[in-house]
Each structure stands twice: as structure tokens, then as C-alpha cells.
């Protein structure tokens, strides 16, 4: 469904991604793991058009989306759930959700989608009118997830949802990821929690220093081998 083909990207003069290629098959969960600073977020930002490519191409359903503005991505059925810190802290929970349905084609169904979000994340419902800045880390992450689902995306790109969360919340979160996968959505998941990430994944990519160091079907991944690679540097 999505193919990243030999891309380079970075921040101004600093290049971060070095000839990265990977693909995400429809209906599958593709997981990218790797240490801090490996370039995982940079890769996701490049896919979404937040960063320009200096080399290579990105294709969705075989068509190049290189140079597509981030605000046009949801029209193509792609949504990114950035880390929970990137919720709109000065807006209420419900306003955050409504922003997820901002593109014109989603506005009519926004109310109904809010109800679905509340059903999926009951912790948000009671506090719909609370400023999002008042939420805990776990709740912020849930809100970011719910907001990303408002446009009912075909391809969901999720950046380190478990970052800094308590173990109980992490379990809850992976429960949600499992359900999303069961709904048949295509998901690209970036995670540092290797064990859990490999557990839900179909395909695993290990990223190190801006390069893909390993790509394997999840069933073939040996956690020990992965750990060896992880700490090889």
C-alpha cells in the first residue's frame, strides 16, 4: 500500500535518513523499532510531507505522493498520530477531536465519530470539556489516538505511543492497537517497546543511525538477535 523508496531527508543541512526503503502492505501492521535518535520520527515526518525529501520517492497505492503537503494527506486516507505531546493543549478534549475531522469531507460525520471515540476511550468522555493540557501522559496519548481516528484513515501512522507511559497504560494501549489491527486498518507503528511491538507486528524493521538495519516478518524475528543488533553500536 505504501512504499518508501530509497529516500533521504533531514533538517536543513543535516541529513538524517540515508537511503531508507520499506513498504507497508494493506491490512498489516508494519513496525519500526530502533534506538533514540535513529531517525524513526524523521521517517514518519517525511512520509507525511512535514519534511521534504532530498532523494527517493514515496508511493501510495503505486502513485507518487512526493511533495504532497501534510494537510492534503488526510484526503488520501492517511493519518499520523504524533506523540501525545502534540495534542492541542489550549483546546478542550472535544475540540481536539473535532480538529481530527477538519477536512471538509469529514465534517458531516464529526459528531458521530466523536461518539465512537468516546466509546473507544471512555476516559475522554467524562472530561470532554476539559482543556487537553490538563490530561496525564496516558490520557494525552489516548486523545492523540482518538483524534487521529476521527478521519477514519485507511493508513494509520503512529509514533511511539507508549513513550513515557506506566506499564498498565502501555497494556491498555496495545489492546487498542490490537483492536485497530483487527478492524483491518493498515498501520505503521514506531515503538521502543521491542517485545510488545514485535508481538503485534506482521513485519518488523529495525532502524539504526538513519538506515534500515533489518527487515523481517514478525514471525521470524528472534528477540535475542534483535537485541544483539540493537546494542551492536
Amino acid at each position, binding site marked *: 500500500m505504501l512504499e518508501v523508496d530509497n529516500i533521504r531527508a533531514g533538517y536543513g543541512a543535516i541529513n538524517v535518513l540515508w537511503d531508507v526503503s520499506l513498504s507497508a502492505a494493506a491490512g498489516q501492521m508494519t513496525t519500526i523499532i530502533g534506538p533514540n535518535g535513529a531517525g524513526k520520527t524523521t521517517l514518519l515526518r517525511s512520509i507525511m510531507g512535514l519534511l521534504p525529501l532530498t532523494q527517493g520517492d514515496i508511493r501510495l497505492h503505486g502513485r507518487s505522493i512526493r511533495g504532497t503537503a501534510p494537510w492534503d494527506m488526510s484526503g488520501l486516507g492517511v493519518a499520523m498520530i504524533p506523540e501525545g505531546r502534540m495534542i492541542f493543549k489550549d483546546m478542550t478534549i472535544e475540540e481536539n477531536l473535532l480538529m481530527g475531522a*477538519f477536512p471538509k469531507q469529514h465534517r458531516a460525520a464529526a459528531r458521530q465519530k466523536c461518539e465512537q471515540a468516546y466509546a473507544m476511550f471512555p476516559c475522554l468522555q467524562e472530561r470532554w470539556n476539559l482543556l487537553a*493540557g490538563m490530561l496525564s501522559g496516558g490520557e494525552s496519548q489516548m486523545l492523540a489516538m482518538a483524534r487521529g481516528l476521527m478521519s477514519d484513515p485507511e493508513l494509520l501512522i503512529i509514533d511511539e505511543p507508549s513513550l513515557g507511559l506506566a506499564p498498565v497504560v502501555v497494556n491498555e494501549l496495545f489492546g487498542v492497537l490490537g483492536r485497530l489491527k483487527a478492524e483491518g486498518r493498515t498501520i505503521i507503528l514506531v515503538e521502543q517497546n521491542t517485545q510488545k511491538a514485535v508481538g503485534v507486528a506482521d513485519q518488523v524493521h529495525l532502524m539504526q543511525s538513519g538506515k534500515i538495519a533489518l527487515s523481517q516478518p514478525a514471525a521470524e524475528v528472534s528477540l535475542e538477535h534483535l537485541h544483539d543488533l540493537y546494542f551492536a553500536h
Partner: protein
Amino acid sequence: MLELILQALFSGVLQGGSYALIALGLALVFGTMKVINLAHGELVLLAAYIAYTVESSLGVNPVFAIPLALLIVCAAAVLVYFLVDLIRQDRELNSLLLTYGIAIILTNAIQLIWSADIRSTGSAWFQEPVVIGPLYSMRSELVFFVVSLALMTGLWWWLSRSWYGRAVRAVSSQRDAAKLMGVNPRKTELVSFIVASILASFAGVALFSYGVIQPSYGHVLTVKAFIITVLAGMGSIPGVLVGALLLGVTEALTVTLASSALQELAGMCLFLLVLFVMPNGLFGAAGRRG
């Protein structure tokens, strides 16, 4: 004495309405674009001079100048937006130079067109005194205070209930996240410039209707708007309103109890005092600035 002070408080509050409109425009543009438009006061003043021209050439009440003021001030604001948008590097800093330059050009253009003379309204209807108990005001002050409150209510409604208003707040809050939600921030920047100039147009006509204007006043207005915005902690509409009323009252009390020559100084002292006691502004939560 007490009556004098009460009267000063009342006049200050009425004046605060227009101040709030000006400050909200400045804050709105700063929120979306992170640009402090130093020409904002001049845009307000432009509206005031358009009101003067309409009144003096057509002999009608200055409120009839509002449509024309809206048209010209919005056009000028859009031009400022596109100029700022041309800046490619260090926009936050370079835009200060650019908008300051535009402010000087506007001040001089105003002086060229309307001369340096002091202008004020000749509308008898507007200058009619209205007496409420011990308090006195001009009709224009009351009318435009109500108009300011109505505009602020409208702005609040737009920012919290409309899709585009919420997008403006989203861009101010988390620019990249807003892009991911399908918001093109450049559009919201332009929209915020236009909304700011709508508020500026009303404020300008108001200032002409109950006060005196002269070409150098634009700069003074920008400073006032800046003081109010910082006092409020770059935050909410109610915060800006309170900051504006506080400035209006401080100035009125200074004029009543000391001298009108100290009016601007008093505003600056208020500014320093509040920032000294509350570095995040009156309503800024700790650590939520910048």
C-alpha cells in the same frame, strides 16, 4: 474627589473596549504566525482617518465609514501579510524590522494625505452627553463599548465554535499537529490577519468618534496593544479584555489625578509592575509561554 475617581474608572473602562479590540488583533496574528505586527496601530489609525474623511466630506455620522474602513484596512492588512510572508529566514525577528518599516511608511502616508493636524469628530449626535447616576460619558463612548463587547462575543464564538476559528487556535497551539489535521497554516495566517483588521477597523472608527487622532497616534496604539497582550499572558479573550480595561483605567486615573502628559508613562509602569510581580502575565499559566 471620590466622584472624580469613579468618573475616571468609568471612562477608563469605556476606553478599554477599543483597546481590547486592538490588542486581540495583535494577539491573534502573533498566535498563528508568531509575528508581532508593529504596523497594527497604524492600521487602526487608518480606519480612524477614513472615518474622518467620510464625516467631513459627506457630512454623515462616522459609523457610515465602517464599510469603507473595513475594505481599505483589510486590503492593507493583506498586503502586510504577503510582505511578511516573503521573509524566508528568521521570520520572527525579521518581521519586526519589516512591520516597523511599514508602520513608518503608513504614518508618513497618513501625514501626507491628512496633514499633521489633530482631528476629532464633529458629530453632535455622538458628542451628546449621557448621564448615568453620577457618571458622565459621550454617547459615542457607550455605543462603541457595546459594539466592542459584541465583537468580542462574536470573536469568541468564531474561535470556539466554527471550524476555521478552531483551526486558527490549533495552529497557534501546535503548528505541525494542525498541519497533520489537514489545516494549511498559511490560510489560517491570512484569515487571522483579516479578522485582526476587521477588529482594527471598528476600533479605529471608535477612537475617532470619541477622541482625537493625529498621525503619530498609530505607534502609541501599537505599544498599548502590546502592553495589553503581554499583561494578559498571550491568552484568552477574557484575559485580553481585563488587561485592556486595566490599562484604560490606569490611564484615566493618571489623567484625572496627575496629568495627561503622564498617560503613556503610567501604562508602561503598569506593564513593568505586572511583569515584575507576575512574569507570566495576569493569566499566563506558569511555563506555558513562548
